[in-house]
């Protein structure tokens, strides 16, 4: 009797134990990070992934055409210098090495502007597709960081005057819409920073300067 009841008890415990082990292992291994997202969050994520993939497909198509063009030029015995030059101009503008002009938005910030507000704004402009950005006349590149306290902010050792002007080249309507929508960045920043005023104006032609930074790596080596 004893041995029969002990066997049943052990079987039940082993069953529960096995179930828990599997559950625990699965919960530890679930590395996608998506399991705990709500349906609404996932919908938003899927929309963003779709947009991103469309951009990547466009890039693949562009690069394919570029490769074909170089191959055709080589077949004709040309140097394809025109193609190289166009590529060079594009990459230098995109990286911030060269100045740029084009349509975009001018954002004027008055009041207690903090470095975090500027960082949030630049991040949002990039997210809205800005192709070139300048803060207080300084071109923003990856390592450009605003510092200091309200009233004595600086970017790349250049003091920022009051008001602070941020210029971004890109689709003016998209950037204006993204910044000024209800609950958007402008509304959020003005709600959380008392006395801060942000004005966004679309413009047909704006100019941003080239960066003064040398973006060439000094220590790290390229891996081709």
């Amino acid at each position: 009797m004893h041995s029969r009841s002990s066997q049943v008890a052990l079987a039940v415990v082993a069953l529960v134990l096995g179930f828990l082990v599997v559950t625990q292992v699965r919960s530890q291994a679930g590395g996608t990070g998506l399991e705990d997202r709500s349906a609404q969050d996932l919908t938003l994520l899927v929309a963003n992934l779709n947009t991103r993939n469309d951009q990547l497909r466009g890039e693949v198509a562009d690069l394919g055409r570029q490769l074909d063009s170089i191959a055709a030029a080589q077949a004709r015995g040309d140097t394809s210098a025109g193609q190289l030059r166009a590529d060079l101009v594009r990459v230098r503008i995109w990286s911030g090495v060269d100045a740029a002009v084009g349509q975009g938005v001018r954002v004027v910030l008055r009041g207690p502007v903090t470095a975090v507000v500027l960082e949030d704004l630049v991040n949002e402009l990039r997210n809205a597709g800005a192709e070139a950005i300048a803060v207080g006349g300084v071109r923003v590149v990856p390592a450009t960081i605003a510092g200091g306290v309200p009233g004595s902010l600086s970017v790349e050792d250049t003091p920022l005057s009051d008001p602070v002007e941020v210029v971004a080249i890109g689709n003016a309507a998209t950037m204006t819409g993204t910044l000024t929508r209800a609950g958007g960045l402008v509304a959020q920043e003005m709600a959380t920073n008392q006395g801060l005023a942000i004005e966004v104006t679309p413009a047909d032609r704006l100019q941003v300067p080239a960066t003064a930074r040398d973006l060439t790596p000094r220590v790290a080596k390229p891996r081709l």
Partner: protein
Amino acid sequence: MSGVAGRLRSIPTWEITLFLALVSLGFLIAAQVRSETPRVRYTSQERAPLIETALGLQAQQKSLQAQILDLRSRIASAEVATQGSGAIATQLNDALFQARLSAGLTALEGNGLVVQLEDAPQVSQAAGSADLLVTGRDVRTVVEELWLAGAEAVAVNDERVVSATSIIDIGGSLLVNSAYVAPPYQVKAVGPADMYAQLAESASWVDFVASRAGQNGIRLAIAQPASLLVPAYAGSVTIRYAQPPASSAPSANP
């Protein structure tokens, strides 16, 4: 002593086995409860196809990124192959190589520093634990601190940080270069050998660590691999609106 040993010997084997199994059971139940992270778990049925779609799109994204890197590499090789055709082409190719290097379109290798961020453990969202989650701002702060420490290239979960990079929170997720990245977030940097020393001396870094790791319990770890590879940017470099100013139109001399 001999009394205790005798009593232990008198316990049936099955009882000892059951005792050990129950201890394991208790341990596993506790581990399972503790593994519930601050991010709330949802169980609705409509999520399964959405997760599947998102994972499918992520896989597509990886494949497209690989195609982009492959095409860029083939273009660079094809361009170099035209060098023999003339001095201008050679000059342009050299300038293009430098431009791609500066733009983050080339992978870089060197002294490394990796900062890993993870949500704070064990606290439920119901307890008002928004501060316990790693946010886009946290990751941006780490990226900024690494630039200040002298980094020459930075990537977040292998998404290279370039001039167009945004790091945003969207629906509880983090998008870097519009690509979904899952926690833990690894910010990799290559640069000078004293990067960690520079980082450790930064007052704003010390404040960040004290506030987010010290007070809020965000898990933060740092590694210094002797050699680290930061991948090339594998996204779009298309510009539609920005043009060179009239005075700096393309010239034969880059």
